[in-house]
């Protein structure tokens, strides 16, 4: 194990460290975050934006989005939107087709007619 495993750990650490710049500058609080904080809508337990991004990317691919388009679609979502999608992409309303409203009216009229609540279809 020793050398190879050690090397792997060392490389992992090096990669992780890439994320944090040496000369530590504090992070600014973006307006979105300030807004969430001020309205107390920030859910402190939610997944990190990076994790949400990965999940959305995976789900989009699984739901048949052209892999070439996935990255661009993910890139333009805000952290809040990414979290919403990561949690609910399979249950959110997906607007697709119009249902003929007139159809519903007649179905209901027929049901009511058959049940005997109304009598508007004259039997002549």
């Amino acid at each position, binding site marked *: 194990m020793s050398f190879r495993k050690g090397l792997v750990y060392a490389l992992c650490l090096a990669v992780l460290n890439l994320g944090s710049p040496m000369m530590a500058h504090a992070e600014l609080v973006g307006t979105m975050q300030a807004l969430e904080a001020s309205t107390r809508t920030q859910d402190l337990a939610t997944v990190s934006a990076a994790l949400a991004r990965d999940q959305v990317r995976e789900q989009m691919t699984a739901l048949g989005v052209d892999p070439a388009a996935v990255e661009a679609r993910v890139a333009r979502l805000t952290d809040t939107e990414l979290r919403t999608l990561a949690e609910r992409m399979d249950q959110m309303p*997906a607007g697709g*087709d119009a249902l003929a409203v007139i159809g519903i*009216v007649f179905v209901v009229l027929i049901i009511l007619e058959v049940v005997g609540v109304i009598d508007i279809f004259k039997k002549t």
Partner: protein
Amino acid sequence: MRRVPRGGRRFPAVAATLLALLLAGCAGQSRLVDTTGPAGLPPKVELTATPFHPQSDQQCGPAALATVLGAAGRDVLPASLSQEIFLPGRQGTLQPEIVAAIRARGLLPYELEGDLTTLFAEVAAGRPVLVLQRQGFGPWPAWHYAVVVGYDATRDVVTLRSGTRERLQLRAAVFDATWARADRWAIVALAPGTLPARTDLTRYLRAAAGLEATRQYDEARAAYAAAVAQWPYEPLPRLGGANVEAALGHWREAEHGYAEVLRLAPGLAAAINNRAEALSRLGCRTLALRVLDDGAARLAPDEPLRVALSRTLAAIEASPALPAGSEPALCAQLQVR
């Protein structure tokens, strides 16, 4: 040509009542249009110049989006939008991707408060409104995007570009019932700098912050400036403006903005944090630490941004201190207010 609202000539009253019962039954009390005309609005409006894109199979999202984008001066065909927003596995389009697509074109995606008067106010202001409706019933829901392009309070109808219908007229009660079942979701595409007809600060800022978060700084700046003009005593629009300057590395302007915010709201954690960071970037370490120290006493007990503030404090404390008196001359002018 005059179209008869769906429901037909023969039993209009019966059909409308039943439909309203059927739909409203699931939605609770639906709000009807005041037949004397929505408050302060013209009794009837129709945006006849709105483009029409008949939808193909399952493509009401791209079609409706192309309609509002076209009306906002961004001509695009539904087929090309399909690549951006259609989700094949769901056979439809999700709301956040519509929001993102509007924003990606440099427009402000403003989600309206869900009531007919607000909706009609946008239409009266010349902007078609993209809406989500839930049709179908029981185990067969059908979610549908359409665009409201007009209303007529005298006849109690709403006019939509919907599916393959260029001018679908629905009774207001029927439209409202289908809309209510989709949580009355409605969105307009605003040119940055334009305010919606009926403004709601939080909704507006959320949309503007989306422009900032996706690095469309010119558009975000224009949106925040309009909000500052509208709500001069609210701190968050000014915070947004300062954040845009900070993101562009304009630390001097940003610091000035944060200082103004703190004059309006001395305990606003985001402004305390960001002002300290801006001061630190300007080389004014001493003043930055004083701002943090001063601000810490003013925070609300349940302030969710405490962690961010302590991280900022640690980062500034860790930065090398200059010998007393050798900080930039600018720092003397930027007193803690």
